[in-house]
């Protein structure tokens, strides 16, 4: 079936809109970005000449302003990855386990409540948390003061509170998604295994460790990978809630690349930074795959 010239024409017609869009809006920008990264390229003035690897050298040589932007952004972003991935994965698993053990008639309503904030945009999330945690007139400080605390906590202007605020906002915003993935994985676990474990007199922890965990391990790994990628792409929360502060400690890598491109007008250097960021992310993810794969042998 589906052989002959007319099918070939059909198939080409059907696939070509996607291929054209893909080439135009993905492959072309990718190629252009690599090309630009080897040039002294201005956003406003355009191409000012081929510079070879100079942009990369400048970013990787300590002491230059671009090195400072890149390294600071990378450090801050990696810090956020480290502090955000464990809660985003573990709390999500906890919520999924709670939902999984609720009586069936309550499952949908709680699942929906835990997931609803995922539908809200990062700008709305930022608006809410900016004013919940504002130093001056923010709701959380108002409540703390009314409970007898003397000084307002400088949530947005002092560390570690600024990261804590970003972290709480991010967990609230995205954790429902990871929870849904865990719920689906838990649904796949064969319930006869639990019954067998019950007969053997296994406790809750033993059941989790020896029945649940092996069955959700792969999904768990996938969730870790997705969460690392999402946390690496930190932008909206830090742009809008703390605007990089205090003292640039929450300037994420994407924010600093944006500064290079628009603030400094250096599209060439910004493109090189974005490619380096892409390479670093790919290496980290590849390493995680390797770790996971190696363990299985």
């Amino acid at each position: 079936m589906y052989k002959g010239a007319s099918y070939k024409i059909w198939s080409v017609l059907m696939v070509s809109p996607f291929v054209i869009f893909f080439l135009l809006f993905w492959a072309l920008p990718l190629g252009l970005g690599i090309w630009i990264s080897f040039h002294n390229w201005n956003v406003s003035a355009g191409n000012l000449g081929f510079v070879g690897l100079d942009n990369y050298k400048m970013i990787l040589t300590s002491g230059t302003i671009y090195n400072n932007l890149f390294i600071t952004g990378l450090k801050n972003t990696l810090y956020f990855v480290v502090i955000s991935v464990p809660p985003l994965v573990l709390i999500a698993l906890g919520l999924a386990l709670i939902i999984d053990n609720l009586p069936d008639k309550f499952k949908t309503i709680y699942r929906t409540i835990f997931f609803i904030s995922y539908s809200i945009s990062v700008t709305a999330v930022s608006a809410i948390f900016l004013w919940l945690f504002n130093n001056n007139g923010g709701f959380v400080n108002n409540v703390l003061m009314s409970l007898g605390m003397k000084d307002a906590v400088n949530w947005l202007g002092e560390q570690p509170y600024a990261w804590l605020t970003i972290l709480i906002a991010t967990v609230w915003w995205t954790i429902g998604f990871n929870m849904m993935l865990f719920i689906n994985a838990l649904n796949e676990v064969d319930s006869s295994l639990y019954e067998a474990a019950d007969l053997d007199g296994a406790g809750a922890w033993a059941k989790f460790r020896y029945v649940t965990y092996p069955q959700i391990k792969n999904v768990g790994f996938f969730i870790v990978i997705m969460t690392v990628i999402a946390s690496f792409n930190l932008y909206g929360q830090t742009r809008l809630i703390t605007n990089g502060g205090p003292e640039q400690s929450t300037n994420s890598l994407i924010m600093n690349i944006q500064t290079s491109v628009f603030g400094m007008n250096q599209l060439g250097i910004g493109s090189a930074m974005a490619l380096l960021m892409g390479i670093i992310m790919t290496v980290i993810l590849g390493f995680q795959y390797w770790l996971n794969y190696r363990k299985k042998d």
Partner: protein
Amino acid sequence: MKRSTRKAIPLLTLATIIAILFLLPLIWMVFTSFKTLSESMASSSILPQVWTLENYTGIFSSVTEAPIFRWLFNTTFITAIGTIIVVVVDILAAYALARLNVPGKKVILGMIFAALAVPGIVTLFPAFYMFKEVGLLDSYIPLIMPYTASTMGVFLVYNFLLSFPKDLEEAAYLDGASQWQILYHVIFPAIKPVAMTLAVITFLAIYNDYLWPSLVTNSNEMKTITLGIATLIQGSNFVNPAKMMASTVIATIPAVVIFLLANKHIVKSVTNTGIK
């Protein structure tokens, strides 16, 4: 395995406490939008003492500086057109790749997998520059078209079709149905669930995108609602939480309503893809 409700009371209590914590920011947002400015800054209670609609009427009267309804229109327009294009284009491509012998099939599939592994930041600024050079910034085109390059949808439908039996299509083919008839009467009904899934993911992705629209729009009139909220945070509502929350309520309602209506499909979409 159904457990009795009574046995579940401790767990239900825990779940309820967490649910309240989850809902608190939203509840606070809604009630704060009905507070007066001075109360919104000083209050330590969720409920307003004095209810006012001034924040909402204020939004209506300041539409020249913050055209929130224009922003809602822009978002509705680009999400509707963008979602339709993505769903149609991706289904056609996935069908051709999964069922018909497209020339260059392996190359196309290879590109799709490669693209899934490349972080989006890599293409972001060059894509902006491309639109700038062809003079299309601040138009609907860059707000819609780049989303059509997403390979996730093709991947999703392609995978679905691979696991979907060919019997029906073969029967229709033997009965003399044309290619178009097979597509319309056999394939489309079968892939409806996965198409809905794709539509919901695409809708939320376009609706909630912030960084990309902020690069390609200049004028107030071309902003999306998501970008508009960012402008308000950094601009005129900077010192006015009550009005900020009223704007945020207006911006949030459409996404939450769609989310609740499509909840079932979103649950499926998460099962199918796991792609954020």
